[in-house]
């Protein structure tokens, strides 16, 4: 795959995805490969995300390259009111590719229009998180395969950018997607529009119980406290969209439970040592997948 920018999961074809996942499988074993010793990756994180940032850092270092880290937003020129367009045009001169995490939707797309180096969207507000999607797909392929897949996606589907990207990417495969959320956090109309356009098999639910027994994969996301004005309302919703060990008695034996992490209360830690728990492997897969992606871009 050769893309100048990685902005949304919508840009991926099935062939693109499979090329990255195959390449990632090679990187999954230590290779001592240092093919990118001259490469510098610019990390521009306008909101904190330790894991995504460390995962990109690990990936480029394992390829022999290094990072240039803009640092935290409070210590940067951003607080002095510099535009994102200016920031990326300056950092472009220092780095071979830019990884951007930004609170506003469309930030990575806009940034890509101002620079000649590849821009990788590492999360833009409630928008997209395409590299998370690649590692999710890698994990799904390892655990359940990407065809004839029945997947449940549960939690905050409205603001969850990992959900939006994953749902779009899954339209490339023979997958039935069951979305489980409170009505107030259902899929936004633009994501639903894309799924309908792609002819995806989609069902929306407010409860997990009815659909759980059918699932090969259950992808759980965190419901954020700040989405609710009222603490009690939040607690009620959060507990209704979490899972514990007893609920999994109704699930297929080989159900894979995934989560983009960090989790709070959505997955009972008692599930961690069952065969269902896939989330830590999923997180580890971020490095080889991002290595494969960077290798194709640099």
């Amino acid at each position, binding site marked *: 795959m050769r893309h100048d920018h990685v902005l949304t999961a919508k840009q991926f074809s099935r062939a693109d995805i499979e090329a990255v996942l195959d390449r990632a499988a090679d990187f999954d074993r230590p290779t001592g490969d240092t093919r990118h010793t001259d490469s510098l990756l610019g990390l521009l994180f306008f909101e904190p995300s330790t894991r995504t940032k460390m995962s990109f850092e690990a990936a480029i270092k394992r390829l022999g390259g290094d990072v240039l880290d803009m640092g935290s937003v409070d210590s940067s020129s951003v607080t002095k009111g510099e535009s994102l367009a200016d920031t990326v045009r300056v950092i472009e001169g220092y780095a071979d590719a830019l990884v951007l995490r930004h609170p*506003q*939707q*469309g930030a990575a*797309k806009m940034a890509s*229009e101002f620079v000649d180096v590849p821009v990788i969207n590492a999360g833009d507000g409630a928008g997209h998180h395409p590299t998370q999607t690649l590692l999710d797909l890698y994990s799904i392929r390892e655990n359940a395969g990407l065809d004839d897949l029945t997947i449940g996606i549960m939690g905050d589907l409205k603001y969850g950018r990992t959900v939006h990207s994953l749902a779009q990417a899954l339209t490339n495969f023979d997958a039935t997607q069951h979305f489980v959320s409170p009505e107030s956090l259902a899929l936004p109309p*633009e*994501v639903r529009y894309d799924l309908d356009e792609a002819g995806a098999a989609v069902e929306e639910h407010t409860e997990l119980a009815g659909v759980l027994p059918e699932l090969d994969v259950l992808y759980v996301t965190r419901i954020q406290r700040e989405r609710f004005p009222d603490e009690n309302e939040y607690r009620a919703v959060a507990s209704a969209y979490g899972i514990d060990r007893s609920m999994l008695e109704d699930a297929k034996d080989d159900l894979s439970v995934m989560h983009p992490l960090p989790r709070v209360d959505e997955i009972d830690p008692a599930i961690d040592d069952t065969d269902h728990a896939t989330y830590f492997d999923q997180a580890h897969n971020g490095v080889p997948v991002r290595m494969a992606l960077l290798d194709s871009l640099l």
Partner: protein
Amino acid sequence: MTQDHELRVGKIRNGTVIDHVTGGQALTVLAILDIDGSGGEEISVGMNVPSDRLGRKDIVKVEGRELSQEEVDVLSLVAPDATINIVREYEVIEKHRVERPEEVVGVLTCPNANCITTAREPVDSRFSVLEDGVRCDYCGTLIREEFADHIGVE
């Protein structure tokens, strides 16, 4: 009958007559053209006049200004059936229908307050035109109706 209503809103000497505008959309058409009268433009508007083709239609006449193709195309969002007559010395010298553009740049404001195009960045709004609405190229937000609410006012 048509003659009658033409007369009601007056003939123009040089400029553009936008006819067969969807009933009630004349003010939106003016907003899209960024005409609010403050520039001294001479405008005649007929609203909800009877029309054989549309039942009720609006007519907008703009004296002294010929619309660009780009402006005309954007009108298609609110007035898909509009016809544009370019008038010189009281004669219609060109007549055309609006066509749906593939995209609309810098005209609409994205309704998503968290969209990068609404931030203080040097970027124009850009919407792709779909069958049944428009969609922000940056954040994906759909606008299907009430375009008038999203006309960008500088």
